[in-house]
Each structure stands twice: as structure tokens, then as C-alpha cells.
């Protein structure tokens, strides 16, 4: 199935070549967890701070178990803040 992977700020460097607008359509398997995708794209664990699926926060403890449905938007940021 296809999901949309969105990587922001310094994590944008980990998107597949040719990606634009901080996003890429990527194929994932039915058994793939969020943690599997983080590993597949070699995202350094230290810099994966904020993970949202369809805009909803995913607790770090759920990264190993959370699976996808087609069309999901997986968005990830390093430690950031503002105001």
C-alpha cells in the first residue's frame, strides 16, 4: 500500500532523492510498523522527536506496534519549538 511520508526541518535530507515539498509517496507492507519505516529511511532515533499519523501524535512506545492503512500521512520532526 502507499502512504505519504513527510519529513521536516533537518530530517528532510532523509527523503528519497527527487522528493519535493518535504514529502514522498512510499510503499509499505501490511506488517510494517512505524519503527520499520524509520529504520528503512535510516532516520536517526535521536532526531525523531515528534511523530504524527494523520495529524495525531504517536507515543514513542507505540512506534513498534503501530501499523498503517493505505493513504496514511506519516509526518516526522526533530526537536523543534517556536512561539
Amino acid at each position, binding site marked *: 500500500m502507499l502512504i505519504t511520508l*513527510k519529513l*521536516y*526541518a*533537518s530530517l*528532510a535530507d532523509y527523503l528519497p532523492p527527487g522528493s519535493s*515539498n*518535504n514529502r514522498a509517496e512510499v510503499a509499505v507492507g501490511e506488517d510494517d510498523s512505524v519503527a520499520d519505516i524509520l529504520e528503512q529511511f535510516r532516520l536517526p532515533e535521536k*532526531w525523531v*522527536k*515528534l511523530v*504524527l499519523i*494523520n*495529524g*495525531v*501524535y504517536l*507515543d514513542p512506545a507505540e512506534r513498534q506496534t503501530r501499523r498503517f492503512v493505505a493513504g496514511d*500521512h506519516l*509526518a516526522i*520532526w*526533530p*526537536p*523543534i*519549538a*517556536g*512561539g
Partner: protein
Amino acid sequence: MSWNKKVLRVNLTAGTCTPEPLNMEWAMDYLGSRGLGTKYLSEEIDPKVDALSPENKLIMATGPLTGTMASTGGRYTVVTKGPLTGAIACSNSGGFFGAELKFAGWDMIIFEGKSPKPVYLYLENEKAELLDAGHLWGKSTWHTEEAIKAGHQDPQIRVSSIGQAGENAVLYAGVVNDLHRAAGRSGVGAVMGSKNLKAVAVRGTRGVANVRDMTEFLKVTAEKKKVLADNGVTGQGLPKYGTQVLMNVINESGALPTRNSRDVQFEGAGKISAEAMHEKRPTDGKPHLLTNAACFGCTIACGRISQMDQTHFSVVNKPEYWGASGGLEYEAAWSLGAANGVNDLEVLQYANILCNEYGMDPISFGATVGAVMELYEMGVLTKEQIGIEAPFGSAQALAGLVEMTAKSEGFGKEIGQGSKRLCEKFGHPELSMTVKGQEYPAYDPRGIQGMGLTYATSNRGACHVRSYTVASEILGIPIKTDPLVTDGKPGLVMAFQDATGVFDSAGICLFTSFAWGLADIQPQIAAACEGDWSMEKLNLVGERVWNIEKQFNLAAGFTKADDTLPPRLLKEAAKTGPAKGLVNGLDKMLPEYYQIRGWDTEGVPKAETLARLGL
């Protein structure tokens, strides 16, 4: 230098400058800056005075850590009664002016009365004099700073001034220092203009003194700077991407107020984000962002310095705007962009530049334009009335309206009154996205529930930096809470409000709070300041600051009915995103908030609460 223990009282009516000792008894209860300035104002004016009358006073106050080696210790606060809201107004700014004021030997300046003609205050250490500003009146903040430095032949003078917006009583005019930093909110610049006070220029050479235990202070400030450097947010995220990195996060979370809050997500968010500021433009091959910048003593350096595309329609014939300039920061990018449906990064920076140059708050300006655009699309306002076609998304309209408002020309005079007065005048008060008359910033309370309570209870009108629960609800700092529920939010809001009162009153930047807690600033204050500065004492200071502000507002005539939100946020559910179907649950949070504050059901502090706080 801890406290200088010296206040300058400037009577603009009489033209006198009189030094007096700082009330150290009050300093022990209110610390400095926001808290101590509010104590002085509360003691000296009737909260019911007309904000733009000579009876109002305006205070510029530093904190005990302003000008010291503490990271970000460069801040000062402008405290007055606000003309936009009629409530307490205290607006905080960084840059270098606050530290210079401290170096000149002063903690605070109190302006009272009204000068018969335009003047500026010139301080050179203990020398204080009011000088004629006839040649500066009508000039922008930038030209004012340039002219003062040239006139005194001293490029190291620091200047805080108003632009034409403050002179013309734009009700959200700010006070701008060091070109790009501002005490921006609540119309403190309009108060300055009403007093015929154009600027304050300071040259201080006293350096740092009066730190209680210098050895301990240097040791602890160095330790705490390392905490900031080692933190992913303050050490890396903010310096590289600035506050603008929030644009995509808040949009993805479904909490980006869009098109006057008709929507909670903006399809153009990516084009006006921090990431977009790093991308090379197709027109000239250069990125919008040039570099980052820091205020005095800051080891974070979140500021943005950008350069516009010279071929953009807004500046193609205006080479004065082709150089490097401050911005964009997140709040301005939102208010000028998403709030109006405008996705043109260049025109947002143009509008932002004019806000800095003419001295007005981009949050209130941009949000008011959002209301104008909605009224235009409804047919309530026409092209003939506005002077320009003004649909949502129009970059041309934004550029035109910022020029009109900055110069108080045509329909710009209406926009300069803020969205509350404008929407009331044109028969649709429900379309004003304000609390207590002040426009709310870049977080939709349907998608971040705690921010609804934050806005509703903010003493200076809707504001994010009085209780930035976004840190917890979205970013997980210091702990993650669910943005879509109301449970636990009253306690969260109160904790943020009280802690923020301490950060603001100390003279340091609130952004340190992404890495520091009160336990990190307590030893810095204790090493710098005489007296007892335990954690318990600091917690009381924060609560006391919040309550004295509340007392001021109650005396000014505010009631429980003012602790509310625009009806759109309470009745119209979010259409998309995680908050789809939700309104803000203020009614579930407000009673508990009053209760844990020690206030009665009408939002009035109980006698025992006031007694406990010494109020």
C-alpha cells in the same frame, strides 16, 4: 547587574527628569520587568483612565538579569494601560536596548503626562534630558534610529521608538528597538505616541555591577548555557529553523487558524514555512533566509534575517527594501499569511518589513485583514469602500492594505482600529477573532484545547506567550498532553501562566523555557540578587504577578463575561484534521480554572487568595 536600584521618572507635561530609588520592598515581591512594572503602574494610575490620555503612564522596565551574563538576559517590558483592550498591557522585547538601559544605570523609566510637543528622551549614563523631536516626527522607526545616532554622532546608542503607526494612534502600534525587535502587542506604541514621546535613546557604559555572588553567578550561568546548547530545541532546532518551523507542525495538527478561522488547515502552509525560507527561489536562485540572529546575551539565536526577491511586485520599484531585514517569524508568517489565505512568502515579508518600519503589531494587523477579507467575500465591504479588491488569498490586497494602514490612509484608518471595532462598525462583531479586543495568534483552540483557556483568561487580551501550552499539547515539552481534550488543562494553563510571569519578570527570554524550568533560573536569580529567591518564593512571584494583573483588569471594569472566546470557536466545529467536529470546550475548563486559582465563580480572587499573595 542585578538591580541598579534606580528609577527615572519623566514628567512629559513639565519636561522634567527626576531620579528616584527603586522600591526594593516591591522588588522583593515582584522581581522586576513585567511584575515590578505592573506593581508600579497599579499603584500610580486609576485603571479606569483613558489609555490614550495624559493620565495614563508608560513604564519601560528591565529585570534583575537584564544586562547580565545569563543567557538571553537582554529583555525589557513596556507596561501601560492598553488602548486596544482597555486592559493591562505589558509587551516584552529583546534586542539590545534593555541591556543598554541597565548599563546606563537605570532599572526602569516611568513616563507620565503628555509633552506639549514631540520629544525624545536621551540617556547617557546618569544624564537624562528631553530633546526636541520635531525633526523625527513623521519618520519611521528605522529613520528615527538612524537620525538619532547621526545627531549624537554615536553609532552605539540604542534606540526604542515609535513609527508613524504610533503617532497616528493605530491601536496596535508597537515600540520598536534595534530595527527588528518590538514590544509589539496591545498598542503600547499608541500610548507612547499619545504622549508626544517619539523615542528613548540610551548610551550606557557602566558595565556589570552589583551581582550578589559573581563567582557563583558566572559558574551557574555557564552551566545553564550548556543546558541550552545541549538541548535539541534551543541548541539546534531554533537556531537553524527559527520559530517558523511550527508552520507545518501546527497545520498538520489541524490547529492553524486559516481565512479568519473559517478553516483550521491551510493548503498553502508549506509555501510560507521555515522549510520554504531555506529553498532557492526560481526567480533569482537565492534562498529567502540569509542567516539567523541573536539578541543581547542570547545563546539560542532564533531570529531570522531574510532578503526579498527584488523582482517581486511589492518591492520591484522600492530598492530600499532589497537589503537584509528581520523576519519572518512564525506569528507574523501566520497572521499575514494563513489568516488571510495568502501563500506568497515574499509579500508576507514585505508586509512584515512595513510593520517593523512603521511600528505596528503584525499579529493584530494581519488578523484584522482576515476579518476585512471575510467581510469583503460576504459583500458587506466593497472594493469602493476598501479601495482595493480584497478576497482571501490576494497578495496584492495584503500589500495594499499594509501600506494604507501603516500610513493611516483611506480604509487603513479602519484597519488600524483592530478587528473588534471594525467588525462592530460594519455590523458583524461575531467575525472579530479577538478576546478582550485583542486578536488571537497562530493556534486554533479547536485543535489545541488548552489555548482556548489561555486566550480567554489572558490578562492582556488574547495572547500565546502568557501560557504557551502548545509546548506541552503539541511539542511534548516538558511532557506531552493530548491537545484534543480539556481534562487537565486548567492546571496546565495556570502552571504555564505563573512560570511565565517569573521568566518575564527576571529579564530573560521565554524561549529558554523549552530547555529550562524554574529550577534552572532559580540559582541564576539567587546568585545575582540579594534576598531569598527559593523555588517557593519564585512560584509565589509568578502567581502574584498574574493576580495583580487580574486585579487591575477587574478595577478597569472587566468581568467574567470578558473571559470568553469568539463565538466561531465555541459554535463552529473544525472542518478538517484531527479536531474535525470539535469546538473549544471553554465551558468545561473555566470553572475549574477559577477554582484552582482561588477565585470565586465570577472570576474574582477570594480574600484568602489575595491575603496569601500579599495583595
